């Protein structure tokens, strides 16, 4: 690949330019929208299909299809694991499932409350599935649903977000979903980490872990729970009997647990540098522009989320001192 300094047209182009300059070990180019549209779902393991989300934020034209979403086919039932970022995103997922299998959709798992993962749930109402979520998901939906709907509709247009679908089956700590034919999905409700309602799904049959947003690859993580908690939960996830993981954002599948290394380095650095800033008496306004900047070239959308992540880390860690 030939790297030339790009014309400074957009920040993203400028960012990709700097990635080129960073050389080996830097990000691969993001797959184009056309490439993702052409091969929307990939079979990452037998009977497990995942659609890669765009490395973008929601725009008027992308239907908030920015998270990795997928489904697992068993002998008797299909489980959707994250229904998508908008009603339209969910409808496309449902159409795709129908094109692959006639097995009924009996479960829609929502890995956490963030809009890019849950607003497609309304597309599955007619299937009468169980809507599965963390025990804290209903409370998080109550607290944020109206705000998320309003903000999503500001971008997508009125009525185009989709309904908030409250889970009908709550996971207290662990649970199993039997899809038939020996395929049992093992669900785990996590403590405060990426968010306050993270749920992960392990398919033991293929040793595939749906990590939800406890795993970001290539796209910069977003922290909305607890930095220390996330590191703890990530560490425990590494002990899952999985050979591969499906991240909430990034490639449809990565080797496990090796695929957690970049995220761990990022979170460790955020923890270390935020603590250092607090120790030096640096205030939050300054910390958001200085902490973790060495990670810039390694993540897409870094500038869109770094200040947010430092803010979250700062408010958590300032009580340690």
């Amino acid at each position, binding site marked *: 690949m030939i790297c030339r300094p790009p014309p400074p047209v957009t920040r993203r182009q400028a960012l990709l330019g700097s990635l080129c300059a960073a050389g080996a070990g830097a990000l691969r180019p993001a797959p184009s929208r056309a490439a993702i549209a052409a091969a929307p779902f990939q079979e990452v393991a037998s009977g497990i299909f995942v659609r890669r989300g765009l490395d973008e934020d929601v725009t008027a034209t992308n239907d908030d299809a920015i998270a990795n979403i997928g489904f697992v086919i068993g002998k008797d039932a299909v489980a959707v694991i994250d229904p998508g970022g908008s009603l339209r995103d969910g409808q496309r997922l449902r159409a795709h499932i129908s094109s692959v299998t006639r097995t009924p959709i009996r479960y829609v798992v929502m890995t956490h409350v963030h809009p890019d993962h849950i607003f497609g749930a309304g597309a599955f109402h007619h299937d009468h599935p169980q809507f599965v979520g963390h025990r804290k998901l209903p409370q998080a939906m109550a607290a944020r649903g109206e*705000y998320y709907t309003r903000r999503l509709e500001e971008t997508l247009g009125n009525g185009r977000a989709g309904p*908030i679908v409250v889970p009908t089956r709550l996971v207290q700590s662990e649970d199993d979903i039997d899809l038939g034919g020996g395929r049992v999905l093992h669900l785990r409700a996590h403590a405060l980490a990426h968010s306050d309602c993270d749920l992960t799904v392990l398919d033991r049959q293929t040793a595939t872990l749906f990590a939800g947003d406890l795993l970001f690859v290539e796209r910069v993580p*977003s922290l909305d729970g607890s930095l220390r908690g996330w590191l703890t939960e990530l560490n425990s996830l590494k002990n899952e009997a999985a050979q591969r993981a499906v991240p909430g954002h990034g490639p449809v599948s990565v080797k496990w647990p090796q695929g957690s290394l970049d995220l761990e380095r990022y979170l460790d650095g955020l923890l270390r540098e935020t603590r250092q800033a607090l120790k030096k008496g640096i205030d*939050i306004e300054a910390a958001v522009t200085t902490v973790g900047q060495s990670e810039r070239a390694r993540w897409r959308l870094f500038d869109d989320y770094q200040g*947010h992540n430092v803010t979250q880390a700062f408010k958590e860690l*300032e009580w340690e001192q």
Partner: protein
Amino acid sequence: MGTVMRRARAPRLRALWLIAAVLALFAAALPRAAGAQQESDAARAARWKALSQAIFQGRALHDGGGVVQLDAPPRALDAALVPVTLDFPGSSPVKSVYLIIDENPSPLAAHFTFGPKADARSLKMRVRVDAYTNLHAVAETRDGTLYSASTFIKASGGCSAPAGSDDAEALKDIGLMKLRLLGPFAAGKPLQAQLMIRHPNFNGMQMNQLTRFYTPARFIRTIDATYEGGTVFHLDSDISLSTDPVITFGFVPQQKGQIKIVAHDSSNVTFDHSFDVPGAGG
């Protein structure tokens, strides 16, 4: 030393609290444009005109220029925590200051009144920002003149949300306080301090989607800071302050002594804590 919690015998309603409650109703009645970021400047100006009329009863608002400056990030990095700095560089002493977040459900976020022990030259706090909004700071000088400064904030993107939480975890350390002195003590010289209070400052406007009941709000209504018995500031506040409020203020210690903080919340619980200010070499 030590934090004391007690339940007050009867709620004491303050005039400002009534104003805030009326404002919240009034703000809810104002139509919020679909796609708030597209709302026109004219609509924003009309909203501010109505709000300032309700709060200041038609008193003239002068350009803040040399009296009050307002600093906030142009885009909120986190909807639940937007740092705001107020500076009062002028020579005419400021008696009190109002912070108004025009598009928030309850726009009057804070009203600080400075006392004789204050160094009323700067304040910092953290607020929630629900939408694309103008932020106004209105300072009142001792002669009763009002000065206004404003800035525009774009709402945050991504997954952040202004909501607080009312769950057990958020209530665990409620009332815990920390105070950090940001410089060395020198008798008679202004000193900055950062006050941190553990409190969910839960905004309440959240329907439980299973029970269809609204969870009641729980937030800090007032904070009084005194130094050796003399007032540093009195704050009337609201649901627009972030969870775990953090306030940076100035005071003028004449000798070593104690800062006492008394916070009162909407559940009529009072939290107080005293902090030693060590004298020179102390």
